[in-house]
């Protein structure tokens, strides 16, 4: 029932005409932590020498919903801005990323080499925001993908120096036995920036009534 309501709101947001990007701006640092409803937790830190690429490291923790396994993946990653569209009232981006790391899990012994790859496409105006992201992790013992769709609507038009507020609907699909079905979430995002840095906070609940939150710093 809740999923149906979320989908209806998502459709409304699309007809009514913002994203955590792996690269915020050139010569900038990004640090983020996401708690994904008990199913996934991810921490990342990146440095972008130029606006079109960044390098960094991350840690991903996955806990299968049926408690069959837990995985810890540490990785190094390269993020690349494939294409950007700068329009008078909007911006669109396509990012691609990939990296290498090590994975431990309680359903096998030892540490395995794991590679990761993914892509993100987003479109943003000051009023609406849409983002689609796919993250793939692979090792000799497992393979899984996390696909995330976010649709956002700003209740008011913010400006630089003020606090931006977004109402965000999220749908997430896990493969590889992590979660059965699509996990949806309703989130509120607050974002404030100055020349010295910015803070991003996002929090909400999933269709299972579980907390989902994210915090990000850019400086």
């Amino acid at each position: 029932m809740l999923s149906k309501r979320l989908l209806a709101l998502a459709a409304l947001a699309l007809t009514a005409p913002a994203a955590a990007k792996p690269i915020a701006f050139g010569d900038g640092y990004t640090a983020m932590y996401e708690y994904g409803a008990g199913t996934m937790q991810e921490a990342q830190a990146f440095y972008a020498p130029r606006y079109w690429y960044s390098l960094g490291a991350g840690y991903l923790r996955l806990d299968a919903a049926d408690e069959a396994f837990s995985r810890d993946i540490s990785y190094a990653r390269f993020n690349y801005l494939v294409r950007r569209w700068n329009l008078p009232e909007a911006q669109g981006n396509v990012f691609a990323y990939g990296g290498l790391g090590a994975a431990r899990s309680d359903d096998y012994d030892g540490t395995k080499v794991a590679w990761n790859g993914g892509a993100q496409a987003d479109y943003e105006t000051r009023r609406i925001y849409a983002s689609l992201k796919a993250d793939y992790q692979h090792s000799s013992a497992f393979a899984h993908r996390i696909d995330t769709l976010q649709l956002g609507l700003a209740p008011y038009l913010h400006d630089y120096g003020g606090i931006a507020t977004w109402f965000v609907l999220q749908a997430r699909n896990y493969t590889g036995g992590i979660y059965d079905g699509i996990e949806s979430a309703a989130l509120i995002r607050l974002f404030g920036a100055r020349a010295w840095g910015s803070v991003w906070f996002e929090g909400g609940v999933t269709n299972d009534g579980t907390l989902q939150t994210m915090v990000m710093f850019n400086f």
Partner: protein
Amino acid sequence: MFRKFLITATLAMLAGTTFAQEARTIEMTVDGLVCAFCAQGIEKKLRKLDATDDVFVSLEHKIVAVALKGEQDISDARLSELLTEAGYTLREVKRTAEPLDTIRKRTHSS
């Protein structure tokens, strides 16, 4: 004849001084300026320049304004290069006598 020359020379000097005093602010219209990330990156880049005294960014008006320090200047070509390096597209450059605070007030009140 000499009087005429003096008047012309004085007027020319005054005009020159006025011009130098006038164009102390650069106002740019920028495409892709929709989020605070964008503004933050651009402001950070422009503030690193020796010629920059202050920077103002308005997402609503899609403008980036730079107050120049002393007699220094930043060429249009350099501005375009800086905006491109920041990941944005410079659409228009305007040089104005309007102080940065006036632009700030004008854009906030409209």
